[in-house]
């Protein structure tokens, strides 16, 4: 399953939907909001997406993973809007008959989401804010 939502991510439900009695290993990744970036104290984060395209790419990614590692079932969910420190921004779940592949496939999903999917993150600090990934003239 894939999900892009402004609501809190229901981790247990996503894991339950992905698991199965033929899969002995389940690897779950949670991305959570850290209280600092480098040494800057974070107040909160804002996530924004090009919704329909992000959904399309996540579906494609899950299909690719399930084809690359046969027997696997995968899910990805990403939250949008304002997220507070400690909240969960993304969930990736891979259920697999074999655990080594579950780790690889879940890591692959997380890498791809970060590099490919049109979702943006703004970090808001006490002293200002920054859209992550954008290079400024001072970089």
């Amino acid at each position, binding site marked *: 399953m894939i999900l892009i939502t402004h609501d809190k991510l229901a981790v247990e439900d996503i894991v339950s939907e992905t698991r199965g009695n033929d899969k002995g290993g389940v690897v779950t990744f949670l991305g959570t909001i850290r209280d600092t970036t480098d040494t800057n104290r974070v107040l909160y984060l804002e996530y924004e997406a090009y919704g329909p395209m992000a959904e399309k790419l996540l579906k494609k990614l899950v299909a690719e993973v399930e084809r690359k590692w046969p027997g696997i079932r995968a899910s990805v969910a990403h939250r949008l809007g304002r997220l507070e420190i400690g909240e969960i921004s993304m969930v990736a779940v891979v259920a697999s008959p074999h655990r080594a592949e579950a780790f690889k496939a879940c890591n692959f999903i997380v890498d791809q989401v970060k590099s490919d999917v049109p979702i943006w993150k703004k970090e808001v600090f006490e002293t200002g804010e920054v859209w992550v*990934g954008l290079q400024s003239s001072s970089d």
Partner: protein
Amino acid sequence: MIVTVKTFAALREIIGSASVAIDVSSDASVRDVIKAVSERYPGIGIIASQIIIAVNMEYVSFDHPVHESDEVALIPPVSGGSK
């Protein structure tokens, strides 16, 4: 022709709108769209060089043609997921 262009994140904030109508020639490419947006919104400055474009929800090269009915989106560097 008039192409409606979606904007996101830093770009949306600078431009002040989630979509803008841009006038380009009927044989315009993705490169021409970025150029026209940069000229109209000089404030996007250095961001312009970091944009890629999606046409009908596919990433395309700068030479890709653009048509009036296309869904065109300016995509600044993505940063979803987790570090």
